[in-house]
Every structure is written in structure tokens, then in C-alpha cells.
């Protein structure tokens, strides 16, 4: 069985995000870009399933500009077998929305015919948390979202997924093929070791365009403006309880 993993290149989790001066989006020039942390977890889970013998091949896929190849290289250096790069140059005014990404991934899925698609539950840049669900809907496959544990039964072609929900842990059983999205506690992603980085250099990255996949990625939504949240005002240090009471009464008006 083959596992398809979708990965996304985003502004690094540790970078302080800034809005571009023209307010068309966030600044990405000269900013460290990395693989979305939830996608790292997805890659790790696919690799563990392969290592456990539940899958034979792990294919990483991404949609993005030429530089997104770095993200695919990371997936390959972690241990994925090969990669598919759907080239798309982003337009800040018309960003690629989850539905468009799900349509592209559906096309890739139909080509690759995996038994399982694993995605991060959301990307830390747009926080949409929709792509996995939409992909399952378009494919009409069962979905196990926010997985905190995944067990594959190869013979019965079933996946058991544990999900952390408000009341506790929900366990669901899916018929394969299926779509799974990963939550933070599913696993701890591995590091890219030197031998694996070396091996990754000879792994194949297939390049395609949305047009070649015959996917319409036009969006009905337009981004008008991106603004920073209002800045928090600096606090003051008071010297006495009386002063505090006075402020609470007369300035904050909560007493």
C-alpha cells in the first residue's frame, strides 16, 4: 500500500510574523520558511506506518512556488520515498484556498492511487483546517480528523483512529482508502540525519502544474487588506493599593 502525505511550506513557527507595508499580506521575503509543523507530524506518521510494515511507499506532495521544493526535500530527508510538486506561484490578492488545494490533491490522489492520505489538520499560516475534510468529501472517502493515534490493519483494510475531543478520546474505525489529519500529540517528528539527507538527493521529485492535472483553482474570494492586531498598551506600576482602587473605580470603572 502507498501513503500520500501532503506538506506545506509556511513561515517558520518561531518567526515573528509581520505584515507587509502595502498590507497585501504577511512579509515572506528574507523570512525563514519551514514545513508546517502538523505536516511534519503527518510525514512522521506515514514513515512509522511504513516502518511497521503497514505500507510500502510514502509519497510527499505539495502545492506551491519553486522554493517549495525545499519542503519536499525535508520530507525526503526524513525518509519519504518520492515526491510530487504541483507548481503554483501565489498571488497575494487571490490566495490558494483549501477547496482549490483539496481539488489538486484529489487529482494527485487519483493519479497515485494511495490507500491512505495523511495531512496536517491545519497549516499555521492561514489556520483554515479545511483541506483534509474537503479532500475526503471530494473523494467520497471516510475521514479521521485530528488523529492522536492511528492503527492500520492491512488484512482487513481498516484504520482505527483515536481523536482527542472535548469529552475525552473518541475511537473511530475507517475503511480504507481514507483520509487522516494529524493532531499535535500524534507523534514526535524525527530529525533529518546526514545519511538520509544524502539519500534524499537522489530521490525523484515529479513536477506538474494544476493545468496538467486539469484542476480549476480560480477563487471566488479576494483578500482586500491584511492588518496587524492592535498593539497592547504598556502597563503601569502602581505604588499603593489606594491608587489601584482609584484606577479600578475611575479609569477601568469596574468597581
Amino acid at each position, binding site marked *: 500500500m502507498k501513503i500520500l502525505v501532503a506538506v506545506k511550506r509556511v513561515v517558520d*513557527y518561531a518567526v515573528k510574523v509581520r505584515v507587509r507595508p502595502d498590507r497585501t499580506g504577511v512579509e515572506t521575503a528574507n523570512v*525563514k520558511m519551514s514545513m508546517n509543523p502538523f505536516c511534519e507530524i503527518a510525514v512522521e506518521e506515514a514513515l512509522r506506518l511504513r516502518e511497521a510494515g503497514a505500507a510500502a511507499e510514502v509519497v510527499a506532495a505539495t502545492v506551491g512556488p519553486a522554493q517549495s521544493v525545499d519542503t519536499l526535500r525535508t520530507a525526503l530527508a526524513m525518509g519519504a520515498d518520492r515526491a510530487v510538486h504541483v507548481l503554483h506561484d501565489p498571488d497575494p490578492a487571490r490566495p490558494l484556498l483549501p477547496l482549490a488545494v483539496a481539488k489538486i490533491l484529489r487529482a494527485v490522489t487519483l493519479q497515485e492511487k494511495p490507500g491512505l492520505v495523511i495531512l496536517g489538520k491545519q497549516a499555521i499560516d492561514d489556520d483554515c483546517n479545511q483541506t483534509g475534510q474537503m479532500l475526503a468529501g471530494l473523494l467520497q472517502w471516510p475521514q479521521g480528523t485530528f488523529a492522536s493515534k492511528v492503527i492500520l490493519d492491512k488484512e482487513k483494510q481498516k484504520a482505527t483512529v483515536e481523536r482527542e475531543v472535548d469529552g475525552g478520546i473518541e475511537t473511530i474505525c475507517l475503511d480504507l482508502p481514507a483520509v487522516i489529519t494529524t493532531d499535535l500529540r500524534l507523534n514526535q517528528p524525527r530529525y533529518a540525519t546526514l545519511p538520509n539527507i*544524502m539519500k534524499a538527493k537522489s530521490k525523484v521529485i515529479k513536477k506538474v502544474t494544476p493545468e496538467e492535472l486539469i484542476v480549476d483553482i480560480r477563487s471566488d474570494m479576494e483578500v482586500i487588506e491584511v492588518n496587524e492586531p492592535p498593539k497592547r498598551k504598556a502597563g503601569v506600576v502602581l505604588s499603593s493599593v489606594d491608587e489601584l482602587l482609584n484606577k479600578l473605580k475611575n479609569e477601568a470603572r469596574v468597581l
Partner: protein
Amino acid sequence: MARRDAAAAAARVLRRLGPLAAEPPTRGTPRARYESGDRAVSSCRRSGWVPGLQRPLCGPRTDAGAYEGQRGASRACQVQSQSRAFGSAATATNIQRNPAYSELSSDDVSYFKSVLGETGVVLDADRVAVANVDWMGKYRGASQLLLLPKSTAEVSKILSYCNTRRLAVVPQGGNTGLVGGSVPVYDEVIVGLTGMDKIISFDNVNGILTCEAGCVLENLSTFVENEGFIMPLDLGAKGSCHIGGNVSTNAGGLRFIRYGSLHGNVLGLEVVLADGTILDMLTTLRKDNTGYDLKHLFIGSEGSLGIVTKVSVLTPAKLPSTNVAFLSCNDYTSCQKLLLAARRSLGEILSAFEFMDHHCIDLATSHLEGVQNPLPASPHKFYVLIETTGSDESYDKTKLEAFLLRSMEDGLVADGVIAQDISQASNFWRIREGISEASVKVGAVYKYDLSIPVEKLYDIVEEMRCRLGDSAEVLGYGHLGDGNLHLNILSNKYDDNTLAKIEPFVYEWTSAQRGSISAEHGLGLMKAEKIHYSKSPEAVQLMASIKKLLDPNSILNPYKLPSPSSSVPCNSLKPAAYQSCLMLR
């Protein structure tokens, strides 16, 4: 003997303070010492990691209850317990209070209040107690008074007065030092520079920052980073250490290999001399060959020649691409060869080359939460962290990968990982920077900071292991790129037997290699008498002459370096003198 003297001195202070001592102890806001003062509060640098309490509030000390339990106690009691604490410390170092210094009187306090106002004169026992003890809880003085000047003029008035009155003074920055240089030994007046924390100017064309001495390094770092520059130094204690203290101790740190020492990066200083003279050397020029370059006297002289009040520093441009690799090597020779190869192949982008032995990794992974060895598959003897900083992400990464793969083929590197994102990079740094923090969790830690030629650097660690056997654990790590070894010896508790096995051997050995017994920590109180191991008698004598010239009454940071009395050739020192280091308890 010294103990009795000290107790008597404290009692006299108490008598003189008369009316003040009768005041009920007010509960001020003691500075948050442990969460901020901890050198180990380090790795916030690259991660969002939020440190909690790093260690129990009572570290190794003689009389742990004295400070914690003093709040309700009467002032007299407290003075006594303080004197007991430092009394034992002072006995251990064979230092006696110099009777030439006056004792603090209520007139002095009134004068300081007239200069600094009520808020600048701190007599509150809790707040003074915090300033009396270093962050490791290893050195403790018995000062009664903490002064917090807000301007150079105020520092000048304080020193001028203290010089006339012969009151000894200890300048204090963030109090993060490791050798007891920033805390009083007896009843010296503490001059804290915390109130002088203004940034004066920033030249964003040349990257020259001018600021007051009390600015916290991390705040400066954040400030210049917003302007597209970085500070030329970075160290574990950056969240609390002051730039003035960095300059006074010539702090090294993690960017040393790339940007060099503060002797190169500090462009100008403003210093207040012992007699209150304000020495303005606050230029912002890269080149200035007019006479003696006096600022260098104050860089690394540990507050013994003057108090640094303003600093101008050259800040390098901030580069967008950083890559970090964590590697393992089978033997120390490979680490050395790897360093040489890295210098050749990574040249312009190499920004850190840190090494640690497997004992350090074991310690960090077992004592720090969330720290894991990135290379767990097979145990290796040595680990190396390489950081590159450059201007082109893909170029740098390709270069680093190519270098590491070549090194692996050549057998220099046994295994390795490259960080794929910033949080992985901070995990690697967390291990290296967490060693110091983890070492204090074991119990007792004897810390040595040595400069040794790189090829011999690890020999001392192995020799020390032979000498100590099972009685203690010996860790070796440090800035290999700078030939700087941090030798840490861990045992359950501080005891004289262990110390006798370590000292003076460690100093003699280092001296025999023509190394330095203090690479970046300074001499402070811990190594004041050990200067002879690294400097010739003539050099020490000249230092003493300079001290005499600039501070004739020797009021600045006394009992530390270089006091004329300490100018004895090292072979004439009796072994008893080495049993010092005053690891309390």
C-alpha cells in the same frame, strides 16, 4: 579569627545605623533573582521555551535558612547570620576585612539620600540580601546598603564621596557572574547600575549602538534586531546580564568565534573613576589612533579601575539565514580535525562550533524536561554543534550539507542531523546551553573555565577523571572554536577532599600548557589569587601599579583582582591558600 572580626564589624555597623536599624523591616519587592538571574535561563534565545524555576531556591550555601527565614527576624539577628555566612566564606579564602576601609554611618546614608533620593538608597534587608549573594548561591557578602544611581553624575558623586570617606564599593550589573566578582566580600557598598538602562542612540548606517551600562543584553539585542543588526555577543545569561557588566568582565559567549572579543567590538566607554572623575571616551569611531587606547583598561578589569556608565558598541548586520547541525564524533581527534575542516570549508558562514562530551548529553537529557538526544541510535563519545549564519539560505544550506557529507565520508563525523526549522535548531542549542543549568541540579558543581591549546584541551578532562575516580563526575564542554573548555566537576556535595584533588592541580596543569585559568568568566573572588598561573609577576606588578594610580585608596571592588598584596609568585603560595574557592557547605 576573621569570623569574630566580622561579627564585631557587623555589630558596629548596627550600632552606627542606630535609628535606621530600629525601623521595622519593610517588605520591598526583592528583585526576581532566580527566574531572571539564572545564567541557565538561556535557551529562550532561540525558542519560545519559557523557563520555570531552574533550581531550588536554596542552592548550596552555608546557612540556607538565614535568608529565607529572616523576614520576620529582627535586624540584629539578620546581621549576625549574615556575618556568620560570610565569616565562614572569608575564612575559607584567607581574606580579612581591610581595616583601612571605613564603616557605614547614618551620616553616609543621609548623604546618599540627598544625592539619590529615597528610591535610590536601598536599606531594605530583603532587597540588599538579594544583591549580597551571587546567582549560584556560592558567594555572599554582608553589605548593608545598595545604591541605585540613575545617571553618570550620580555615580560620580557616590564614588567621590566614598573615596573621601574610604568606603569600599562593589559595582554590580545583572549579578550573573560565575566567580563572585559582582558581590561584596564584607560590607562594601553595592552600586547597582539597574537604573541606568537607557538607549542613547543608534546609528543604523554603521550599526553603532550607544547606551547606558545598565541595559540588559537581551533588551539591546531585541532593539538592534528591529533595526536589522545583532549584538556582537550572546550568552546564556542574556536575559539578566547588563552590557556594563559584559564590558567590565570582557564576556565571551557564543558569537565569539565569528565576531571576536569586546576589545574589538566596544568602540567607546564612559567610565567613572574611583575619585569621581568622569572619563569620557565615548567615541563611536572605528579608527582612532590618538595616544593610549585607555578604554581597553576597563574592558575586563572587573570593576576594579572604574565603573563603566556608558558604552558604544559596534553591531554587525543581522543575516537572514541560520543553519544548525548536531553531530557526533568517535574521538576527540575527529572533533579537532572537524574544526579545522569547518574553518576551511565553511569559512565566512561559520558562526559557532561548540563541543560537549557524552557525559554532558546524559546530564542534560536526564535533568532537563523535554531535552532529548537527537542522535539516540548509538552512543557516541563526543558531540559537536555547528551553526552557520549567512545571507543566502539555499547557498548556505547546500554548503553546509556538502561539508557535512564530505566529513562523514572522511570519517570525521559518525552521525549527524541538520535542523530543518527553527524549533529543531533551538532544540539543539537547548542541549548545549542547558548543560550549565543541569549541572547545578546534581548538587555541588565545581566550575572551571580554561583556555587551552585545542590539541590538549580534552586531556585535562581525562586526567581529572583519573584523579577523581568514582567520587565525582567530570564533564567537558565548551567553545572549541575559541580553545575554551568548560570543565565542570559534579558531586553530591561540596567537600574539601574533592576540592583538594581538583585544586591546585587544575591551575598548575593549565599553567604548564601556557593556558589561561580564566578564559571568559574572569577572576573575581574565586580566582583572585590565582592570577599568577596565567600572568608573569612583572605583569601582575604592573597591574597593581595601574590599580594604585587609578584607585589609590583601593575602594573599587576590593579583595579581588589585582590587589598589590596578591603579587606573590605562584610557587611561594602555600597549598592551604588553594583550598579556597569557597564552595560553601
